[in-house]
Structures are given as structure tokens and as C-alpha cells.
């Protein structure tokens, strides 16, 4: 008898908890108890426990109640792992918090609470710069001080300072960074610069040139003696030299750049070592592709690349741009590609101006 009573009580409780989540029992409780009492441990109650609805979603560890707007998890809804993960990412992406975790709290008497526990980033109280060389505006490089201390900001600022110092000729510059607490939830950020000597460009030399006059190449360079020689400018000028050689038919030319540093004299020399290779001439030049304009419209432009004359890259670029413009004007915008075929025996370059 006592057993039967307990069974009734258990089923009644199960039914109550089911009602709270708005799902009716598939069978009436009495029928379950009287006919198949073993079923009282089955079905609804377990399903409810594994996917309970939330009584509250809270944010803990911050006064930033605004951050609630980033959350997809809602009280009254079922626990949804995908939404919780998205919420963690969203809270982290605000940049306000150094750490985020999601905790599910429950006890036997109440539906669970989903708590997002966050650790706020400290505020930046002060940004100090030490050791900047004269004439170098470190403050302008650092820019506005962020309200919160973000390690990414600290690192990228340091990288920016190093880059700008090197661009200004301090090729061996080093920048240290430090983030130290200065008060509760406030940090002081400091960057310490060790600039080293300022190195400027002494000269630009060319090795291995026989076809192209060095002065012609020099006139195209951005590097200037007496000024700093930042790496990006050296790389750019290496490309400029290659392209200039292409304009003399030297399509297989190789350009190796090296830097000769003389730290005692605070100067460096840039050397472009060139392997010219043979000079190529224009071979067959044609236009291909679908949806072409009448052939005659291309002919006069292709005639600027006559077979047997010295290959000039700049002329090819000009023809490509002209063909693109022709299609644009005709209302049929097309991408124009150049497919080239080198013939090392005849030293010619066949070109297929391909309209896509």
C-alpha cells in the first residue's frame, strides 16, 4: 500500500514538472500508475531534465548591463549549446572582457539559471613613451589611447612603432612594452624605444647591366641617397627595375637585390645584381575570346606590337587597357588577360590577348 502511495506521489510530481514546461503527458497519470507502474521512471521527466528551460540568463562580473543585448540565450527558452557558444563569442568580440565563460546553475527545486561570467578588461590610465629619438613623433604613431587595455592593441602599437622607426632610418630599432597595474582595474602602458643609429641610403648600384643604361633605371627609383631606405621602398624599387628590364625585351632577366650596410658610417648601399639574359622580340599577336567586337576594331591597336620589334611590356599593358576600354564603351565590360608564350630558340614572345 505504502509502495503504491509513493508511486502515485512520484507520478504526480512528474506530471507537475511536465506542466511547467508546457508539454502534456502522453498518458493520464492514473492510468500509468495503476496499469504500468514501472513507467513512472521513464519518459517525460528525463527529457525535461536534459533540456530544461532557463529561469534566467544573467551576466556576472561586470557593470556593463548593455552587454546583455549581445546575448541570444533567453529566459524561458531551452538550453541551447549553439546559442551559448555564439553568446560567448559575441561577448568576447565586444572587446570589453578579457575572459568569458558560461555556467549553468541549478538545484532540485528551480529551473536552471544560465550565467555568463566575465572578467572585465582593465582601463588604460596612462600611456608613456620613453627613448623616442628627436624628430620622431611617437604620439602620432600611437594615436588615441583606448579606454580599455586590449593586448592586441598593445602589440600592434608596438609593431607600428617599430615599423615607423625603421621607415625613418632606425633599422635596428627595438621597442619594449610593459603593462603594469596602477590602481584597481587600471593599468599604465609604457613603450620603451631603443632606436639605435639612424642609417640613410649612401648609393644605389647596378651590377651586370649591359643593355640598359643604369641612369635610365636610376631615374625610375623611389630610393634617394641621403634619405632613409625603408624595406617596402627597396622591395618596390626591385620590382621597378624588373619591369624596366621587361621594357627592353629582357623578359627572362633576373634581379637580385642586396643591402650593404656600413653601420660605422651610418649608411647603406643598395645593389641590384642583374642577369639580363637575351632580348626578346614580338612574335605572333592575336585576340581571342567569345563575344568579341568586330576584328577590325582590334587591328590598329595590335599593330602597335609589330612582329620582330623589341618586346616592350609597357606597350602590351597599353593595348590591354585600350581593349578593356573599347569593350566598356561598347557596353560589354570584359576582363582582358594576356597569355604569353616564349620561344627561346627564335627569341620571340607570342601573345594572346584574351577577352573573357
Amino acid at each position, binding site marked *: 500500500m505504502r509502495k503504491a502511495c509513493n508511486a502515485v506521489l512520484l507520478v504526480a510530481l512528474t506530471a507537475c514538472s511536465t506542466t511547467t514546461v508546457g508539454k502534456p503527458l502522453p498518458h493520464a497519470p492514473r492510468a500509468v500508475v495503476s496499469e504500468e507502474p514501472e513507467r513512472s521512471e521513464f519518459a517525460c521527466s528525463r527529457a525535461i531534465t536534459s533540456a530544461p528551460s532557463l529561469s534566467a540568463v544573467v551576466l556576472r562580473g561586470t557593470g556593463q548591463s548593455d552587454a546583455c543585448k549581445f546575448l541570444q540565450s533567453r529566459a524561458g527558452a531551452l538550453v541551447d549549446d549553439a546559442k551559448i*557558444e555564439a553568446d560567448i563569442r559575441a561577448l568576447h568580440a565586444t572587446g570589453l572582457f578579457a*575572459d*568569458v*565563460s558560461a*555556467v549553468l546553475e*541549478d538545484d532540485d527545486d*528551480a529551473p536552471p*539559471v544560465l550565467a555568463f561570467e566575465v572578467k572585465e578588461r582593465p582601463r588604460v590610465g596612462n600611456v608613456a613613451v620613453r627613448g623616442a629619438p628627436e624628430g620622431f613623433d611617437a604620439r602620432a604613431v600611437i594615436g588615441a589611447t583606448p579606454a580599455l587595455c586590449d*593586448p*592586441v592593441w598593445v602589440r600592434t602599437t608596438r609593431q607600428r612603432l617599430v615599423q615607423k622607426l625603421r621607415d625613418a632610418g632606425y633599422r635596428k630599432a627595438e621597442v619594449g612594452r610593459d603593462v603594469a597595474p596602477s590602481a584597481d582595474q587600471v593599468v599604465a602602458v609604457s613603450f620603451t624605444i631603443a632606436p639605435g643609429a639612424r642609417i640613410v641610403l649612401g648609393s644605389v648600384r647596378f651590377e651586370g647591366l649591359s643593355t640598359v643604361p643604369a641612369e635610365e633605371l636610376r631615374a625610375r627609383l623611389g630610393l634617394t641617397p641621403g634619405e632613409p631606405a625603408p624595406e617596402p621602398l627597396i622591395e618596390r624599387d626591385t620590382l621597378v627595375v624588373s619591369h624596366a628590364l621587361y621594357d627592353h625585351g629582357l623578359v627572362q632577366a633576373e634581379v637580385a637585390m642586396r643591402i650593404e650596410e656600413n653601420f660605422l658610417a651610418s649608411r647603406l648601399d643598395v645593389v641590384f645584381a642583374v642577369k639580363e639574359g637575351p632580348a626578346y622580340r614580338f612574335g605572333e599577336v592575336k585576340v581571342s575570346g567569345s563575344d568579341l567586337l568586330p576584328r577590325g576594331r582590334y587591328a590598329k591597336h595590335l599593330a602597335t606590337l609589330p612582329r620582330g620589334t623589341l618586346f616592350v611590356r609597357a606597350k602590351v599593358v597599353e593595348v590591354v587597357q585600350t581593349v578593356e576600354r573599347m569593350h566598356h564603351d561598347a557596353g560589354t565590360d570584359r576582363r582582358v588577360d594576356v597569355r604569353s608564350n616564349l620561344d627561346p630558340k627564335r627569341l620571340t614572345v607570342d601573345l594572346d590577348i584574351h577577352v573573357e
Partner: protein
Amino acid sequence: MVRHRARWAVVALLLGAATAKEAEATPRRKIVDSVVAVVDEACITQSELSRFLAPHEVRRKRELASKPAERATASAQLRMEGVQALIDRRLFATYAARMGLEVSESEIDTALGSVAAQNHLTVPEVLAAAKEQGLDAARYRADLLVQILEGKIIWHDAPRRYQDWSALSADERLARASRGRDALLAELREQAVVEIRR
């Protein structure tokens, strides 16, 4: 003396009762997700790590079924490797985006076809074999995407890294590309803010 003892016993009882009541009132706490690592502005979550490790866990459990003592050590090791692998994926993905490198669905289809052909299987058979390893079709395709993208990154980066690239034979390029991958990864790790949390 006896009275003192009795008093302490009462205090202890009261304290015990209070602690018990407190324990009763404290809800059960379960961390359902958290940030396990940060790569610049992006975070890697515990659930992302669990999804990534799931197929490896299946294999590990199978392999160490009879060695329960080794299982815990292997699990911790696997977790560390998983976190590092996800960090590296994130670094490569960011680099690829910066370089404008992408992988199309058709490239994944082609790679899937190649895997099938190399193993004398059909594509559905490859997917079935992957599923046995705990990788469903979506996850397997995502893994292929990562591999293809990594390949593109390495071949994109190598000519910049090795000045004599154009003069190298195919075998030499392959060897250099492999070394180049490690070098690039070291650079990307150095340039990024990477934090492993828990």
C-alpha cells in the same frame, strides 16, 4: 572544562548546520562553455575544441581501451595538441584572408574525388570510411578545405621566402615548401597575440 567542551560542541554543531544549509542552498554549477584560447581578436571556445577533438577521442578510446592509466595522460596531451591545431588554423585563415586566398566548393569536390581515386573507392565510400572515424560529411569537407587552403598558403608563400624558387626542381620545391610551412607558422605566431587560457 566539561562545560567548555559542551559549548564548543554546540558551536561546532551550529557551524556544521549552517554549512550544511549553505551547501543545500548553493546551486550546482556546471561550466557549459568557455574561452580556451584567444588569437588576436578571435576566441576559441571549449565547444569548438570538443567538436574538433571528437573523432580523435573516439580513436583514442579505442586504442587505449585496455590501458585506463594511460588514457588520462593521452587525453591531456590530445587537448593541448587540439588547442594548438585550432590556433594554427586560425592564424592560417587570417593570413589567407589577408592574401585573398580562398577555397571553392568545387575544389573540395575535386579533392574528395582525388582521395577516392587514390584509395580505389567511390566518394560515398570515402565519406562512409570518414564517418567510421567520427567525421561526418560536413566535418570531413571542412577538414579538406583547411588542408587545401594550407597548401595554397604554403605555395603562395614559398617563392617569396626562397629567392631561388624558380630554379628549383619539383622535389626540391616540395621539401622547401614543407620547411616554409613551419617558418611561416612561426612568423604568424610571433606576429599574433595568442593566449591559451585553460
